[in-house]
């Protein structure tokens, strides 16, 4: 199955310059997301999953800094290396081509603005033209209808009118003909009013300051109505009951599950190519978890997007993901198809991870040792001090990340790869 | 204890890294040096070093302030009783400033701590009543209420402020020894005891039981100040109260008092320390302001605010202001630097403790 990849992360390096020292959070991450797939990104807390996802959108907050590597975005209107894109392209990318949902949804929503404010915001940036067009159509439809009714009334009146002589009859005929012509022209040249003209001008020249200034004089009622309608539609698509009421609510009035749905709706509202989901269900109840997971998968199918699903829950991975990437201490150490990963794990860490899943009747098995400190890390493979297969070379050289079997990549000296 | 020590070391390192904080510390150290060396720098003329010597010879020549000369390095402030040496006032005023600042802050802090802790810990009606009470006091702008209280306080009650502080700090020391010998708290308390002792005994013993005007002011500012601390500590305790380790402590049978001292206070005390540090400067400003209005230390007392207050009568016209500028500028600069020092330290503490508090 050769699917094209939409995002290619190559040798990504991210460092955090903190008071305690320089934390080498990402040490050459290689990741590739294909079109329409669900890629699971697993790893322990602190291994760098979130940083990777934030990097894709260049959202790494200070004191973090992306210091090396490339993130190639290969789809949609904005292509190229995300790390070198102009601010303008970056803003077009965010929210429209790539969007993100987070772990604690209520914390990630601004508490002083209502739900419809925040969802509407995204649409205003990326879908403004579409909504303006909707507004135009809606108003024109109404105007046409009103005019038609008026004209129809006129026609009826004309019909009922009695004529006294031939001259009157001719005049009447003339008027009737004019009326018919007007009625037939309605569809092609609709009547207009100030609001519609403003909208049309906005569609034609979105950046013009003159038009923006003129737009201030209009209440833009229809536009706001259309925006609200769109917000409600989006809310309905994530199965929120009574969306009109919810739209007016504030984040602190929402439950965790509802807030997460809203965040999802916000992320999907502009039909992104890639959705990054950073542990979206970790803080939710188990039953809600299942609901949200199903929702995400269903929506993805409908939109044809790809999903980068970040989690530390292997059960979710097994259930929903098509491919898996395993991360440890700032490196991707194994990437493969999900069945392949679970049945035939190659990297010692992956194996240990799968072994440590609690099974009834068996004793607990954990991985001995601790995750290494990422401040001044040791050279070589970062797992070597906990690895049961560690060799001399593992202490000195970092293993390269390469394709051991078709579509199965590993970074481990056990499988060679050094030229 | 180990993680605590590591925390303090980290904190010190952070303080060292901030140049503003170091500047603040240096300023304060300079003032401490002045305070300690006061008897050397400006030898006292009478048994009470805080009474400024009056140069009557110079007063006979001219009653108005004189600019700096070799005899009087900073110049003098005039009065009919004799010229007061500004240098002397500034040097001994340093000790007064420290006394006022530290004692009043310590007192307000203790009262606020007790009331705030009680209100937060026991909640319910006690909390409501105490909080309404603090609301009423906070409803007054600080200076206004302090002024009112300083005036209305009866002229003589049988104790003065330093004696009160001494008694309170001794009680606290006994409490600490009985319940939980915490070295840090004991060290701070020891300092306060030493301070109060010094304050008490620096008065000649016959000035006993009347309240000097300065004492009234100190009482007044304390009464105005404690609600601030009460509110802060109450907020912190409300936050900490519901944490698991408090439940655990109660579940293991600790008395309320033990739980408070051992678990709740150490985790909620940092914001108060920041407020206290910043407050010392603020209180010195308030005292100076009150002295400026005329409600402060007596006329011949060595206090910066008092000196500036006297300056008022000598700047009534345009020329006089320029001529006698030194009378308010010099003590004024002392005040400014003193307050800046404490403010820098307080800011640095806040910058350092803030991320640490968040990490919890």
């Amino acid at each position, binding site marked *: 199955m050769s699917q094209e990849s939409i995002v290619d992360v190559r040798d990504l390096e991210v460092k955090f310059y903190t008071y305690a020292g320089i934390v080498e959070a990402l040490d050459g991450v290689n990741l590739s997301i294909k079109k329409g797939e669900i890629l699971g990104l697993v790893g322990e807390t602190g291994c760098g999953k979130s940083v990777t996802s934030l990097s894709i959108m260049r959202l790494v907050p200070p004191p973090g800094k992306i210091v090396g590597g490339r993130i190639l975005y290969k789809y949609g209107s904005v292509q190229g290396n995300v790390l070198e894109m102009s601010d303008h392209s970056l803003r077009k990318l965010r929210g429209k081509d790539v969007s993100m949902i987070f772990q604690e949804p209520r914390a990630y929503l601004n*508490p002083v603005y209502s739900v419809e404010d925040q969802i509407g915001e995204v649409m205003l940036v990326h879908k403004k033209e579409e909504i303006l067009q909707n507004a135009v159509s809606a108003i024109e439809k109404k105007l046409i209808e009103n005019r038609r009714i008026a004209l129809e009334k006129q026609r009826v009146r004309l019909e009922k009118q009695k004529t006294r002589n031939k001259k009157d009859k001719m005049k009447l005929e003339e008027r009737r003909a004019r009326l018919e012509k007007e009625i037939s022209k309605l569809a092609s040249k609709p009547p207009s009013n100030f609001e519609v003209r403003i909208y049309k001008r906005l569609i034609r020249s979105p950046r013009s300051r003159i038009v923006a200034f003129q737009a201030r004089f209009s209440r833009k009622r229809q536009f706001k109505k259309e925006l609200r309608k769109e917000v409600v539609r989006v809310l309905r698509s994530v199965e929120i009951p009574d969306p009109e009421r919810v739209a007016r609510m*504030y984040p602190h009035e929402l439950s965790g599950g509802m807030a997460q749905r809203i965040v999802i709706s916000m992320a999907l509202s502009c039909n992104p190519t890639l959705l990054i989901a950073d542990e979206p269900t970790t803080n939710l109840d188990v039953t809600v978890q299942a609901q949200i997971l199903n929702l995400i998968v269903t929506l993805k199918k409908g939109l044809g997007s790809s999903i980068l699903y970040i989690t530390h829950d292997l059960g979710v991975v097994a259930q929903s993901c098509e491919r898996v990437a395993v991360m440890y201490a700032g490196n991707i150490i194994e990437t493969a198809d999900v069945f392949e990963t679970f049945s035939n794990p190659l990297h010692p860490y992956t194996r240990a991870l799968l072994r440590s899943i609690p099974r009834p009747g068996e004793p607990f098995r954990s991985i001995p040792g601790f995750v290494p400190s990422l401040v001044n890390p040791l050279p070589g493979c970062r797992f070597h001090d906990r690895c049961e297969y560690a060799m001399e070379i593992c202490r000195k050289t970092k293993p390269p990340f390469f394709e051991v079997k078709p579509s199965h990549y590993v970074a481990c000296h056990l499988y060679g790869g050094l030229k | 204890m180990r993680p605590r020590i590591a925390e303090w070391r980290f904190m010190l390192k952070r303080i060292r890294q901030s140049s503003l904080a170091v500047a603040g510390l240096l300023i304060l150290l300079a003032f401490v040096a002045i305070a300690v060396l006061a008897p050397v720098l400006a030898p006292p003329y009478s048994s009470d070093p805080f009474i400024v010597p009056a140069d009557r010879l110079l007063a006979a020549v001219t009653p108005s302030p004189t600019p700096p000369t070799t005899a009087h390095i900073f110049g003098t402030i005039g009065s009919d009783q004799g010229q007061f040496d500004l240098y002397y006032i500034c040097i001994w005023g340093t000790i007064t400033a420290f006394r006022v600042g530290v004692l009043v802050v310590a007192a307000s802090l203790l009262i606020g701590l007790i009331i705030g802790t009680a209100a937060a810990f026991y909640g319910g009606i006690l909390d409501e009543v105490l909080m309404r009470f603090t*609301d*009423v006091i906070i409803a007054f702008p600080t200076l206004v209420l302090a002024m009112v209280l300083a005036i209305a306080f009866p002229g003589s009650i049988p104790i003065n402020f330093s004696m009160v502080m001494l008694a309170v700090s001794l009680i606290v020391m006994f409490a600490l020894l009985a319940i939980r010998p915490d070295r840090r708290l004991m060290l701070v308390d020891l300092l306060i005891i030493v301070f109060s002792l010094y304050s008490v005994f620096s008065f000649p013993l016959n000035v006993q039981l009347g309240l000097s005007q300065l004492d009234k002011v100190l009482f007044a500012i304390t009464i105005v100040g404690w609600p601030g601390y009460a509110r802060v500590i109450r907020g912190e305790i409300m936050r900490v109260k519901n944490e698991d380790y408090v439940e655990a402590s109660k579940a293991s049978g600790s008395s309320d008092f033990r739980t408070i001292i051992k678990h709740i206070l150490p985790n909620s005390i940092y914001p108060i320390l920041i407020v206290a540090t910043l407050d010392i400067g603020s209180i010195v400003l308030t005292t100076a302001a009150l002295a400026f209005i005329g409600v402060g230390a007596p006329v011949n007392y060595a206090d910066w605010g008092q000196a500036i207050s006297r300056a008022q009568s000598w700047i009534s016209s345009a020329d006089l202001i320029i001529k006698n500028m030194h009378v308010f500028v010099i003590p004024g600069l002392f005040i400014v630097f003193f307050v800046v020092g404490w*403010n820098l330290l307080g800011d640095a503490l806040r910058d350092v403790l803030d991320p640490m508090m968040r990490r919890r």
Partner: protein
Amino acid sequence: MTNLFAYIIRRLIMLVFVILGVTILIFAITMLLPLNIRALLYINNPQHFHELIEPTIKAYGLNDPFYMQYGRWLSQVLQGNLGTSAYFSQPIAEAIAQRWPLTVEIVIFAAPIIIFVGIFIGVQSAIHRNTPIDHASRVFAVLGWSLPSFLVGMTLLAIFYGWLHVLGPGSLSDSTRLYVSSLPHYVHYTGMDIFDGLLNGVPWISWDALLHCILPTVTIVTIDVALLIRVMRSSMLESLGKPYIITARAKGLDEKVVIYKHARRNALIPVATLSGMLVAGLLGGLIITETVFGFGGLGQFAADAARNFDTPAVLGYAILSAVVFVIANLIVDLLYAYIDPRIRLD
């Protein structure tokens, strides 16, 4: 919206209670005073108050229990009788009413400057963290807050009055004041010469008053703006570190929108509370600043009264000050509820 309404009602009720508490506190303080001074609280006649003391003591039963006296005193206050000032030989309420407009004159200029400049610099300081702009504003903030107001005032006077002979103390220059008192038809509409001058058709009086407001305004602004800058800065920094800012950026919003629409609105919440308290304090009288400049407003009234141990006057002033403070706080709370929807629920 009924939530907002209920909230307002609740706050109003609390306001009444706090004001009652304030009056009780003041009254308790008066009980510390000797009898004949307390009598002055009930007398409204500046001419012959000495003779009136004895009869007043009897008439108002100043030897009765606390609550009875409190009741009587409170009813007097509510009728507008705050007593007589021995020092000023004036009914206190009248003295306050005369002088308050002058204080307001300064506050009208000082308050907006403090608030807007403080917010602006605070926000910029937070956005450009650790750049020279930030360091400069932080240094200014620490310095400004450490300055005693009388020092700033006196220094400014020394420079502008003593050295440059430009702006002087007082709310009007002496010559202007003489002129005003000599005008037969000069009506004090607002009590503030800035406006009265215009309303009476003598604009240069307004100009003179305006000039005299400059130095006191600068004094008070220097000190208070420092506090606002510091609070705004730290609040803004905290707001910028919040998760919803990452969401806002992830939505593709322009950085300016992220900062000003999302971060700043949240950051303004604590600043609004602080500003309100600040303005409330200002309206209660700038005791020190007015005294330094001899402005003749409410603050100077309080200072003079205090210096001369005229306790009834000081107490009357304290009541007014507290009431202004409490009402201003209420307004701030309402504003707060408007900005932050979370408050409306409880």
